[in-house]
């Protein structure tokens, strides 16, 4: 079974994730929308190409709106991290058992602490790698003249780290890897670098997922004040979830680390 098939065979999981994510975003933005409406009432604003300037003026004159805006974004990040970490063992188990009876799902919860631990351990080498890449970029392209090459290098590093994290989590949930030891997180980096047939598809799906994120932002910023494109943005968000799940499914599909003794 390939990774895509695993994703398609878990339709209720996909639906659940899409609903949770879209509903959270709508809920958070509704508060901002209402607050702005109340602050402006009874006045209106003609856009005539000045959206950004007017938005800044509004936030300048109503700092509570700026705080609400920040709160919405911070809330999104926190909720997202909590949700994804909480359901990560479940997602991995569900993708691993795609097409079978989901009886194993409740037991996935017992892997949560170990997934949390391996995620925390993973952050250390991730930070070191990013620091090295940052320093290399700065040395090669000094004085802030960072360019496309530096950006690409950072993106590749992030995608590599993401693949390693997916592998580590899968080993904890599916293959009985050491639950608390840092070596589980560390070995996953080695495994990712040794298994290009896992790494490359994982990176491709990562890039696709991030591409959706970037497209969402570009479309939303460009269209702001000129007409609503929110449904296009939501569609891209759904696509991003599918790409993300497929990326995790690549790690599930990879199975145990063949290099592990």
């Amino acid at each position, binding site marked *: 079974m390939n990774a895509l098939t695993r994703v398609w065979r878990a339709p209720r999981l996909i639906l659940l994730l899409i609903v949770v994510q879209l509903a959270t975003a709508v809920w958070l933005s509704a508060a901002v929308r209402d607050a702005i409406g109340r602050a402006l009432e009874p006045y209106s604003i003609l856009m005539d190409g000045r959206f*950004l300037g007017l938005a800044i003026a509004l936030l300048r004159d109503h700092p509570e709106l700026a705080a609400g805006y920040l709160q919405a974004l911070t809330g*999104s990040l926190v909720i997202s991290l909590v949700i994804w970490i909480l359901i990560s063992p479940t997602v991995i188990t569900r993708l691993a058992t795609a097409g079978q009876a989901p009886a194993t799902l409740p037991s996935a919860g017992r892997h949560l602490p170990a997934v949390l631990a391996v995620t925390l351990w993973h952050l250390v080498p991730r930070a070191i790698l990013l620091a090295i890449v940052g320093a290399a970029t700065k040395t090669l392209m000094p004085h802030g003249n960072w*360019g*496309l090459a530096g950006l690409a290098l950072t993106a590749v590093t992030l995608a590599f780290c993401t693949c390693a994290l997916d592998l580590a989590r899968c080993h904890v949930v599916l293959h009985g890897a050491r639950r608390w030891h840092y070596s589980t997180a560390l070995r996953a980096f080695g495994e990712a670098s040794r298994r290009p047939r896992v790494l490359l598809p994982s990176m491709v799906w990562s890039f696709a997922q991030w591409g959706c994120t970037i497209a969402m932002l570009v479309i939303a910023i460009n269209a702001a004040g000129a007409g609503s494109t929110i449904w296009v943005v939501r569609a891209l968000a759904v696509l991003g979830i599918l790409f993300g799940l497929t990326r995790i499914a690549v790690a599930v599909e990879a199975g145990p680390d063949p290099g592990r003794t």
Partner: protein
Amino acid sequence: MRPVSVQRLVSIQSLVSIRASALLLTLCLGCSGAPELPRFPEPTSALRPETQRGIVPADARITDYELEGRLDAEQHRVEGSARVTWRNTTQRTVDSLPFHLYLNGFRAEDTAWMRTSGGAHRNHPQNSEGTWGYIDIHSVQLEASPLFVADDTEDPRTAVDLPWREDDEPSTMTVDLPRPVGPGETITVHLGFTAQLPRVIARTGYLDEFHAVAQWFPKLGVLEDEAGWQAHTFTVQDEFYADFGNYKVMLDVPERMVVGATGVRTAEEIVDGRKRLTYEAEMVHDFAWMADPNFVEHHGEWQGIRIRQLIQPEHIADADAHLAATVSAFESYQKRFGPYPWSSLTIIHAPEGAEDAGGMEYPTLFTTSDMAPLPPWVRNHLFDEKMSGLFTTLHEFGHQYFQGLFASREHLEPWLDEGMNTTSNLLAAIDRAGSEDPVVIRLLSQEILLSDSLSNGIARRGFLEPLDRPASAFRRIVRNYGSTVYMRTAALMLTLRNVAGHEAFDRALRIYSDEARFRHPRGSELEATLVAGLGERPNVAAAGSAPVHLDVQEYLDQALRTTHEIDFEVYSIDNRPLRGKTGWHRDDNGTLQGGEPPPYLDKKLDELGDAVEGRVAVRRAGAFQIPVDIRVVFEDGSSETLTWDNQETIGVFSWPGQKIHQVTLDPEHKLLLEWDRLDNMAYDPDLGEEDGLSRPLGDLTEAMSLAVMGLGL
């Protein structure tokens, strides 16, 4: 002694640095075919040819300086001497000479500069290493002249030691003369001094081998007929005020130094590892110089004026952009404010860590700041801004006029210097963009315009205090100097330009500029020129509206000498049935007749056709009185713009036969002084129209939330 090329790009010293290694690589690559940087020869005269320089009045030349300075780059110290020749062109007789000793502002904690600044400038605090700077006068002598021979027995060739004393505030000193100097008389004094540079603070000082040598010599005050000697104590907001004159300056610096200075270089020689440079400048009121072995030269030219940039190697790629901004500024300023009289312009880029030396103007020389480090693909496709280095270049260029050429009393009327300079910068930006509201920041397709930026600049802090006050009256703790002096002046001038007419305003400003050259103009002169140029009460009504007149002097009084703010709001919109003549009326016999019910009873407004009346109430929420345009869009899509003279707090207007759909105050955004514009537009509340901002901002929030949540997966 051996002459060296004035076009040396890099000093030997710089080759040892990593930065310079990169440059060396670039130069080596250049040897293999890359085009060389263009070079332009040093001008032979400090002034442009007579046909190009514009009016340079001979009687404005009052104080000449011959200066010598030897830089000890290890101690960051200049040993110097000054020969100062002063002509008394006033009707006053004086018995003393006041000198500025600006560097003494950095001498100790208890100087006026340190007290008023809190030991920091532009958020750059004093550094514990090399904090103090000072200027120490060794000697003051009167040059022998027949004028000062006391009697026949005294030798007129003998120089006389003069008594001098630092004032209570050491940023000035007073030299007593042996006898008064009357109108028309000339004297020459010699001063010996040591200038110890501080670590870079407030536009001067050193950082490693970079030396910004400004305000480094004793500088004579300005004698005015009405006010006597003007030599103000140096405080944090005060800048510099001096008479025009000719300068001849001999500098002695380590050979490795690349030097940029006011004026033109007329001689250069190398002696024992030292470089001796001679500079001459004509009709300037200051002389500054900067030295750094790491400077790379970049040359350009505009109408024979040499534009020389001394830039740090890592920013050489930005030099063309700064040059383009400078050339564009030359074109705009020459047209708007008259000919630039000098033959050279030097632009200095201070190194990283010495940013407090950046963004400062001296005659024919200014320091700028670096552009935000954005690669071209980001600037072209994602994010671009015109507020960092290029605006600094434009601003400091503008000071070549609004300081270098006009030399108003910035310490007394800062709005006339910094404020009018900012006004001129924005006019130059308008010229360059070919738009009255150019883009300042662009994020993808979204833009922040000049008017947005100005509005943010003056919001709240710009109106805490009146504008027309001495620089020292603005206290640092209030933090309103920039928003008031720079931004509010620009906003009030551009508002006047928009309301009274672009052509008339631009013409008046040109008249002021022509009269102000080398003349230390007063604010009252600019005001009088504007009143004369625009008319005392020009009609400022929108086309088709009844005449409404603006009292220009009253406008300037409100804008400069009060804290009044321009603020209008749409107070109320109401569409109602048109009141007719139904009901009981007496006929010719005195008998009540009629009594029919009004036609609108039991009818909706939509069913009344023309028997409706639209009314709007607008409110002047700010104390500032100025006519404002009101645009009303009716239900049928037609519109009408009228101008409200704004003599009362609330104005009510009605349109029988029309239903009002939307009302906008100041629809063309003429009133740049009005920073709160969120209440300037409203729809008929019965229409239930959206506010225009909550949906797009809400959508953007949702999109960003979704994007952020995607990162967690």
